[in-house]
């Protein structure tokens, strides 16, 4: 695929952008990364994702693929000769898709509410968040990765959130290690992979970013 042009419209703290960074790195795909200013979206972003106007957007030979899980699946199908992310067995594939969808439906919101709310609402969000982690721990079982022996679809979908945990723990006043040690073990195992370590931002930078957002939204 020597003449492929691959562009990623991204935003450094986005856990959704991280999914594509990891997938492209696992597949050893060369790409150009364009950092978006979400307060001043580029004409390219608006043209490539007119429906949602959101990042990440993968642009492959001029054609846009939007929505991170869909883009990861696209990357897996196009660059299928290296590091397969989805399993081959139909039932295992269905499980992987189910959990990726669960992460998007349940996990993102509960995490977000931890740093955007206070008092009772925040306590409820913390409870939800930890419950989600426990459900995901259950799905992981005894495997080293959700993908089995190697990083897979669900690992790629989930690990980006780990860069936000320091922020969640700071504002929510809890410790993931204490509540869900198995989850933290899994996360640290993922972080040992180059593709992951190079794709996730420093957690202190994320905390600073969240601080700025909280001030901006008047949550402080």
């Amino acid at each position, binding site marked *: 695929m020597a003449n492929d042009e691959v562009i990623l419209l991204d935003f450094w703290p986005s856990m959704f952008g991280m999914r594509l960074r990891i997938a492209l790195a696992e597949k050893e795909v060369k790409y150009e990364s364009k950092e978006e200013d979400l307060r001043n979206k580029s004409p390219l972003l608006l043209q490539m994702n007119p429906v949602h106007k959101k990042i990440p957007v993968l642009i492959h030979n001029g054609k846009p693929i939007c*929505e991170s899980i869909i*883009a990861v699946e696209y990357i897996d199908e196009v660059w299928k000769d290296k590091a397969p992310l989805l399993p081959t067995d139909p*039932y295992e594939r*269905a499980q992987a898709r189910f959990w990726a*969808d*669960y992460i998007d439906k349940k996990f993102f919101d509960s995490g977000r509410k931890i740093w955007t709310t206070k008092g009772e609402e925040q306590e409820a969000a913390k409870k939800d968040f930890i419950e989600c982690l426990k*459900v995901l721990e259950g799905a992981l079982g005894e495997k080293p990765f959700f993908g089995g022996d190697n990083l897979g679809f669900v690992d790629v979908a989930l690990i980006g959130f780990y860069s936000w945990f320091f922020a969640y723990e700071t504002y929510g006043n809890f410790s993931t290690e204490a509540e869900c040690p198995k989850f933290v073990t899994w996360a640290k195992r993922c972080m040992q992979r180059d593709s992951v370590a190079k794709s996730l931002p420093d957690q202190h930078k994320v905390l600073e970013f969240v601080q700025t957002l909280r001030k901006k939204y008047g949550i402080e």
Partner: protein
Amino acid sequence: MATGSVKLLGVWASPFVNRVEIALKMKSVEPEFILETTLNKSELLLKSNPVYKKIPVLLHDEKPICESLVILQYIDDSWPNGPSILPSDPYDRAIARFWASYIDEKWYPLVVEFMKAEGKEEKAAVLEKISEGNLLLEEAFIKINKGNSFFGGDRIGYLDIVLGSLLGWVKAIEMMDEMKILDETKMPSLAEWDKRFCSDNVVKDIIPQPEKLAEIHRKFHQMKKATSN
């Protein structure tokens, strides 16, 4: 060719269950339909879908698969010899998945919001948002079908099933509220597609008539009122 028992937990009035029924029929697979009642969830449902406790659940060789879009793709993967549900080209697949996600996460929730809204003004406000979505879907259909009858080409496919399955309820809501959600003048191509989809051999005995759905809705609400008193 996949073997093993195929069971579908659902209710005939659920568009999400209808999706699975259509997909299985495309593959010439006849499931054992296990009827769930909406008010009291069965042990089997709670055991098979502990995360969401919702139908549809497909049980293939007693192994549960949940979430209608996941199930559709599972059916396509498991019965590769029948007609394809998803397109074969990766980019076309990504586009199909994108619009399926849009329909389930943005468009249909607005339709439900419309149904629940009280008073003409509130309903009109939601309807305006739906109409914007309708235009997007009309444009998408014209781009995707490449001059063919369906999103899937000359035969129904993933996106036809995802959007088409919801039409029964959309029309039932139009009846109950006496307001048009699907305006043929603004979405002429989809209006024609609608007729073709609903009369397709695979589909026609599966999507319930809007009148029956409207009746179910009325009865369900009467039941709910009665049990909460």
